[in-house]
């Protein structure tokens, strides 16, 4: 079985972002970019399945401008066998991304598609669900545990509002990964060197016959309202007094 993993390049999670003065978006120039943390977890899980012998190949896919190939190199250094880069503008919406992924699934025919549950830039949490719908595959979103068996099924623990929900999915399936699924590995220096010679295949949107659907328009991006600064109190008594008589919440 082949596993496909979708990977997004985002502003590194440790960077404190700045809204552009013209309100057109968030500053991404001269800012450290990294693989989306949820995508790292998705890739790690795919690698573990391959290492357990239940998959033969892991293909990493990324959709975006040419810099996205750097992120794919990171994925190859972590252990992906090969990569696919689909050249596309930045900031296309999940519906188009899902259509591109479906087109690649039609080419590659993987038995599993792993994605991060959301990207930490736009926090949309849509793409996995959408591609599963387009493919008519079952979906296991927000996975915190994945167990595959040879009967061509995946048992997935999902983090839901009321606790942990367990589903059984017939393969092929789409699985989106939550934070507690695993701890991604670091790429070692020898593997980073090896990754340089691994193949990255290029596709264009025309190759895949996908058109960008633009049914959304970002009007502006602004900073959230600041909370007015609070006070540091000196004792529990003072705190209880404030809560009772000033804030009136207890």
């Amino acid at each position, binding site marked *: 079985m082949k596993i496909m993993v979708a990977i997004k390049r985002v502003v590194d999670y440790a960077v404190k972002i700045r809204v552009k003065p013209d309100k057109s978006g968030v500053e991404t120039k001269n800012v450290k970019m990294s693989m989306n943390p949820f995508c790292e977890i998705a890739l790690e899980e795919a690698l573990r399945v391959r290492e357990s012998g239940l998959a033969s190949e892991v293909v990493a896919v990324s959709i975006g401008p040419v810099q996205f190939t750097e992120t794919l190199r990171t994925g190859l250094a972590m252990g992906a066998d090969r990569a696919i880069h689909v050249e596309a503008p930045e900031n296309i919406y999940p519906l188009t991304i899902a259509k591109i992924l479906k087109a690649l699934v039609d080419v590659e025919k993987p038995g599993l598609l792993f994605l991060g549950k959301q990207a930490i830039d736009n*926090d949309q949490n849509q793409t996995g669900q959408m591609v599963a719908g387009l493919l008519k595959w079952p979906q296991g979103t927000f996975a915190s545990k994945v167990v595959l068996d040879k009967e061509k099924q995946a048992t997935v623990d*999902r983090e839901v509002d009321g606790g942990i929900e*367990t589903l059984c999915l017939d393969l092929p399936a789409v699985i989106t990964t939550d934070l507690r699924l695993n701890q991604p590995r670091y790429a070692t220096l020898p593997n980073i060197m090896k990754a340089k010679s691994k193949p990255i295949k290029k596709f264009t949107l025309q190759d895949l016959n996908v058109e960008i659907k633009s049914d959304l328009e970002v009007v502006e991006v602004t900073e959230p309202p600041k909370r007015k600064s609070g006070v540091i109190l000196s*004792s529990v008594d003072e705190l209880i007094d404030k809560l009772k008589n000033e804030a009136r919440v207890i």
Partner: protein
Amino acid sequence: LSTLVLAEHEGGLIKNSSLSAVEAAKSLGGDNSISLLLAGSGHSLKEAAEHAASSHPSVSQVLIADSDKFTYPLAEPWAKLVHLVQQSGGYSHIIAASGSFGKNVLPRAAALLDISPITDVTKISGSNLFIRPIYAGNALSTVRYTGSSPCMLSIRATSFPVASETADLKSNAVSIDQVDLSTLDEDESVAKSTYVKLSAQISERPDLGNARIVVTGGRGVKSAENFKMIDKLAEKIGAAVGATRAAVDAGLVPNDLQVGQTGKIVAPELYMAFGVSGAIQHIAGMRDSKVIVAVNKDADAPIFQVADYGLVGDLFDVIPELLEKLPEKK
């Protein structure tokens, strides 16, 4: 305008977050007929449908999908259901609350309808103009939907509180109609996922998403044993218990208590954080609370930047003192 609200129910009652979705539907514009869509099977669905019909004065129709395929809220049949109902109903908007159900179902349904959904909306500024947080709430994005109908949204329940006059239920009967499910199986994915179980923590305390007071413990609490102090305090003041990702990852508490960018979003009247450093991903989940109290040994902890009342001190001294001096819940 006509809006379809995807509703969740439990124990024969519509969930509060789904009523928040009705509130959101109301704010889309004046002349809006709102239909609630429920799915399930048998008696509990029937009970929930009756509750739905009198749950909110703005609801004008209740649609029910009764099938054993809906005994559990699986995304595959639900997405197809939304597709079917949209084809016959031609709604201008479809809304769900962005809990784990809405996050799971709405985008899949949107893909079947070839629509770009707008998820986690915190403000509705017009029938096609919405505000949603990005970058863990460190920026707000205003988006306009310019595509064809339906416009599909998931809304953050804490941003659309249910108005209290909702209690004055109107007496006129709202019609309860069955959805024709004869073509549900056309989507071959419907039979490909099976529900196994839900491992839930049974708790007497208020639900984290709707509680008036939330008491949260962070990594500073150090152990599951120590976390019982947080529980005790919550019990005394009638609060729900929350936790940071660090506390969940360290195994102090189960994941469903996590507050933050990838956990639950809360906005209670009072949020009390103990031993919480204040990572941006955590702040994203609680910044809209009305009053924030932070107790931390480290005077430089970022949590103090968002706290209305800060106390620099050891939580192991402060919590016992609070337990002794705070009044019992009313």
